């Protein structure tokens, strides 16, 4: 039996690392840093297997601890409770997208088609928990959780463009990620209400939305987008950057 002190300190760090890592250098020849300790990852993975039945609730976390041989009270090391479980779901599904790279690369050369494939793969991963997703979205929308939720959404959009082979190097980089974030979250929301067989309507919805992204004009052509976006984004960025100096 492990005690909960084993796990305590890295959890707080985990959430702050997740928050910042999207802006950090991605090393090719170094291992990627993991935001979770192996023990945390085992507990949270086990907990996720209970989500289809119990939902994104404390009970799933407790069952996850029990499965891995920890005391029930160990769940308390996840300070953000259910939100930690939700974040782990988002993190693990995002990082799993890379597994589809070989297949998608072989199937199509078209950047936007690839982006679509990754969106479909990511949304499909929601299917087992789709009935539980609205409650997760509600937790993500609580004011204290909004910054981390948006950060995770931005990371997903970045992951998809990166895997698809996006090479934008000017302001396109931002417009592409911002517009994909918007499309993805709208489609995810749509999917929770979709009763069609095999989510047929969801894929059609996604198609229509992505067409707009593909037709986005770049950089100087869309200076109003740029001004709107920077105005919005720079407030938070300014705060964090000035704090660090």
């Amino acid at each position: 039996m492990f005690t909960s002190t084993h796990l305590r300190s890295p959890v707080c760090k985990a959430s702050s690392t997740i928050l910042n890592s999207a802006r950090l250098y991605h090393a090719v020849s170094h291992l990627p840093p993991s935001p979770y300790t192996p023990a945390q990852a085992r507990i949270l993975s086990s907990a996720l297997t209970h989500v289809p039945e119990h939902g994104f609730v404390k009970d799933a976390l407790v069952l996850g601890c029990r499965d891995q041989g920890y005391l029930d009270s160990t769940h308390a090391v996840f300070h953000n409770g259910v939100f930690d479980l939700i974040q782990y779901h988002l993190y693990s599904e995002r990082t799993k997208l890379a597994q589809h790279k070989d297949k998608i690369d072989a199937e199509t050369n078209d950047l936007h088609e690839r982006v679509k494939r990754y969106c479909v793969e990511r949304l499909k991963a929601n299917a087992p928990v789709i009935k539980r997703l609205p409650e997760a979205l509600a937790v993500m929308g609580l004011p204290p959780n909004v910054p981390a939720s948006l950060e995770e959404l931005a990371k997903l959009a970045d992951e998809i463009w990166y895997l698809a082979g996006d090479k934008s190097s000017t302001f396109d980089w931002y417009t592409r990620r911002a517009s994909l974030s918007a499309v993805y979250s709208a489609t995810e929301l749509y999917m929770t209400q979709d009763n069609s067989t095999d989510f047929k309507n969801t894929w059609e919805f996604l198609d229509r939305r992505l067409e707009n992204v593909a037709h986005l004009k770049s950089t100087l052509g869309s200076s109003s987008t740029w001004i709107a976006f920077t105005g919005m984004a720079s407030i938070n960025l300014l705060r964090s950057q000035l704090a660090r100096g």
Partner: protein
Amino acid sequence: MIRSLSTKSCSRRVAAALSSSCSGKRFNSASTTPTPAPIPAAGDRKLPPLSPRTRDFLARLIRVDQAGELGADLIYSGQHAVFKRTRPDLEPLIAHMWDQEVYHHKTFDALQTTHRVRPSVFSPLWTVAAYGLGVGTAVMGKEAAMACTLAVETVIGGHYNDQLRELVALIESEAAVAEDGRASEELRELAKMVSRFRDDELEHLETAVEHDAEKARPYILLTETIKAGCRAAVWTAERF
């Protein structure tokens, strides 16, 4: 001016840190290869993760250098657009420097993509400002254009030197972190590249001096203004 940018002080340390792969040779200052150097492939045995502080430093480095090279590319492009009509004699000189800047710019674009660094939010602004600066100084004449080059390359060359010093220290400390003392090939390649680009920028600086940049007394105000602008841009592009 040039002396203050002397590369001697840190070149010995750089050579030592990079010695295993470049054997102390002076880096070729003319970058003739049309495509960016390949990024070292991910081997089976990866090195330990880089610290968040290091990753932040490297992200800032790539972001600011990409923005700087975008600017340099467009300054020379602006000057070229003017001089090819008004001073055809200067055209090959400008074209040569411009070519090098295009290569620098492409290299950093590739690095930004590979290492998943976000570009500067202000890239549209750098684009407009740099092209305007190029056209504007070229219209003022040869001396003003050279004074502009002198100002820009002084700031950029100096900045590359600062980065190189930090990179070398970083490579040494990362080698200490790896169990087998292996230095990161990826970081070493980056340092070599920064060092080579620094040499290119110093060559541009020398060219500007040879072409009477400093004779242009009335342009002291211009040079100082451009330098101040570049420093402000560097500060901003590192962060945003």
